[in-house]
């Protein structure tokens, strides 16, 4: 007992360590011997032995790394919680499916909207001639409702060419342009359009409404910037939505506002951009489909050059109607077409065919041949349609005088300005309606005067920011019927019917109201074409004036019931 006590007191601290270390090393060696029995164990031991090199800290680090790797490999996969989906159990799914009652695909026509169907005139012969006959009553009408501005839809030369090509090439192209859809006639038309406008490249599309929606997204993506006019048509609105670019709108045709925005973007946004330089576009229309006015192109060109933007102009209505030889809005202002970076036009308006096209420099148009969805996947135009467009271009250019003015267009322009002078300078009429279109526009837009609109209790706008439709779209309400809009459109149709009963067919603007995201108002539209004589136009003006006056004088908000 005594001996042991003295032993324990004599043991120093370092000795205790060495003894424990000694014991551990014995066990460790036994462990190593054990490991060596395992197949491949000898290799591990050799590796660890040669790794150690009398540096335990390093071995420790490596061990940690190995443990980390093992832990990483054995962790179960888990989803990042950023998906924003709700996971429903099978029972919940079943309940939801059972509860769901589908809305009808097409809502039944209500009594309040029945007039829309009744108002559609049915004409005897197909075509958009300047003279029509109604099917039921055989009443003759002067057609001021079609966009056939040059009145070439039943022209002998164009119809003869169309017939010839139908016999030669049939009626369908049977495929997208890149997949056997393009025939020699298509290439001819592309070259003809290039020659007509003096541009490097042209791409044909099968549908004019889809042209913009395919061209713009092929050049724009997220992070790009678009400054667009707040009066653009629905086709461009949808194109910009599809392009995913950042869109900012400037007040309709207010180029000072545009300049302010451009300056602001230069100072506030682009300066702080990192990474690749974004693409920057100014988007506008040559002749606004919603209002009938024309942007001041020289200023736009100046702004886009100064602030390094690309200019996109939708010339659906202006090509073949504006400019001394129908080259559109750039010719109207005496600017070369090449100054505008991208022009989209329609073959379905003045050119009397179908489809659309995009013109510009070679690189820009060539990109579309593989980068534009509608060009790649949509069927090409029928051959005879393209031939008609080629013929119309030929007709426009064939009777030019030495000043470069096409005879057919100067005749159209004189009629437009004569009618515009009549309708815009009429004092009594200006108290009832406002002419929103430009003097050069072949479509004359008449909007109810703002005083009358307030008197009738109509809102300043039906769509756009802060409107009722905007609210319903936001809340996902599928019922888009608006009493005031229905009333206003009904009133316009009432005027159209009155005018129609006196032998003149005019029209009004129609919208897919649920899809419009910018402010629009319904207008009366008078589309002047070359087939109508000046006398007929004067007569049409007198009829429209008297009928508008009858319809609008003394009309109160309650009066809508009686229309």
């Amino acid at each position: 007992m005594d001996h042991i006590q003295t032993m324990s007191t004599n043991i120093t601290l370092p000795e205790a360590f060495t003894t424990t270390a000694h014991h551990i090393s014995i066990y460790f060696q036994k462990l190593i011997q054990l490991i060596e029995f395992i197949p491949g164990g000898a290799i591990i031991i050799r590796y660890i032995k040669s790794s150690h090199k009398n540096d335990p800290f390093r071995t420790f680090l490596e061990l940690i790394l190995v443990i980390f790797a093992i832990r990483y490999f054995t962790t179960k996969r888990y989803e990042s919680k950023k998906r924003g989906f709700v996971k429903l159990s099978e029972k919940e799914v079943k309940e939801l499916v059972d509860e769901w009652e589908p809305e009808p695909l097409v809502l039944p026509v209500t009594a309040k909207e029945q007039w829309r169907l009744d108002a559609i005139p049915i004409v005897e012969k197909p075509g958009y001639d300047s003279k029509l006959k109604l099917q039921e009553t055989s009443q003759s009408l002067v057609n001021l409702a079609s966009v056939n501005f040059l009145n070439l839809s039943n022209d002998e030369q164009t119809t003869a060419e169309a017939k010839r090509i139908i016999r030669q090439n049939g009626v369908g192209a049977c495929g997208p342009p890149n997949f056997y859809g393009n025939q020699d006639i298509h290439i001819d038309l592309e070259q003809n359009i290039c020659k007509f406008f003096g541009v490097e490249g042209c791409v044909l599309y099968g549908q004019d409404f889809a042209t913009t929606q395919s061209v713009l997204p092929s050049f724009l993506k997220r992070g790009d910037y678009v400054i667009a006019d707040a009066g653009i048509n629905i086709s461009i609105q949808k194109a910009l939505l599809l392009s995913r670019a950042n869109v900012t709108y400037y007040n309709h045709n207010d180029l000072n506002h545009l300049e302010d925005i451009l300056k602001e973007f230069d100072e506030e946004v682009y300066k702080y951009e990192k990474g690749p330089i974004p693409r920057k576009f100014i988007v506008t229309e040559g002749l606004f489909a919603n209002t009938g006015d024309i942007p001041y192109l020289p200023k736009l060109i100046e702004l886009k050059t100064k602030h390094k933007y690309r200019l996109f102009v939708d010339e659906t209505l202006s090509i073949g109607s504006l400019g001394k030889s129908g080259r559109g809005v750039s010719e109207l202002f005496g600017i070369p077409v090449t100054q505008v970076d991208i022009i989209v036009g329609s073959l379905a308006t003045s050119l009397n065919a179908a489809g659309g096209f995009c013109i510009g420099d070679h690189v820009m148009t060539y990109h579309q041949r593989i980068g534009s969805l509608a060009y790649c996947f949509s069927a090409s135009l029928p051959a005879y349609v393209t031939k008609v467009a080629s013929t119309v271009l030929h007709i426009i250019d064939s009777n030019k005088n030495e000043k470069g003015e096409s005879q057919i267009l100067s005749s159209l322009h004189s009629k437009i300005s004569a009618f515009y002078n009549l309708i815009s300078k009429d004092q009594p009429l200006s108290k009832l309606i406002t002419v929103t279109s430009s003097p050069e526009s072949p479509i004359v837009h008449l909007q109810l005067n703002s005083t009358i609109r307030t008197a009738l209790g109509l809102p300043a706008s039906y769509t756009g920011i802060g409107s009722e439709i905007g609210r319903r779209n936001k809340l996902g309400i599928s019922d888009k019927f608006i009493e005031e809009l229905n009333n206003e459109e009904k009133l316009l149709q009432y005027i159209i019917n009155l005018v129609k009963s006196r032998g003149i067919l005019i029209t009004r603007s129609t919208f897919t109201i649920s899809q419009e995201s910018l402010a629009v108002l319904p207008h009366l539209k008078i589309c002047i074409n070359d087939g109508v004589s000046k006398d007929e136009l004067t007569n049409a003006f007198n009829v429209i004036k008297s009928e508008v006056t009858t319809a609008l004088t003394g009309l109160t908000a309650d009066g809508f019931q009686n229309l």
Partner: protein
Amino acid sequence: MSTESREITPITSASTTTTTTHTFSPETQELKQQRRHRSSSIISHVEEETFEEKIDQEATPNLNSEWVHSKGAWVIHIVIVIFLKVFYNLVPGVTNEWSWSLTNATYVIGSYIMFHYVKGIPWEFNSGAYDNLTMWEQLDSGDFYTPSKKFLVGVPIWLFLCTTHYSHYDLQSFVINLIICAVGVVPKLPIFDRLRITFF
């Protein structure tokens, strides 16, 4: 179409003359997105995608990151490492220790550029829905601990252990290789997901 992003966003204008209307912006994405770039902090976090971006991301398979899952894509990592080692061995004047370290460095820096530096997709098919994300973040639509990700974390660790072993545990090369290994492994950890470190 997200309704939230359609709020009117008046552009903050320094000049008071232009206060009239910036009311037309139904389609304008929040200018927040633009302002995000102005953040002056060195460390920033990539914001969650909007509903539209998510739809665009999931509309089509991401061809930029799908190929990583194939067996050939796994084998090629090993092949590249062997190829690099052979290449550095052939360079005159490079010792075995240096040859391993250089192999390690080349592989890790190369994969860092590929997985963590370059953002977006080299070609265009979903309107730039992945433009803010690196390839690592695009992999498996951002899920963690997937087989491909485990493999890609494993390779730099394995390479580091090989390197230190065959370079005879010289302290200098050990430290260098450990740092290189950290460059290869640390950005792949879930806590560093969508983190951006920008110095200028």
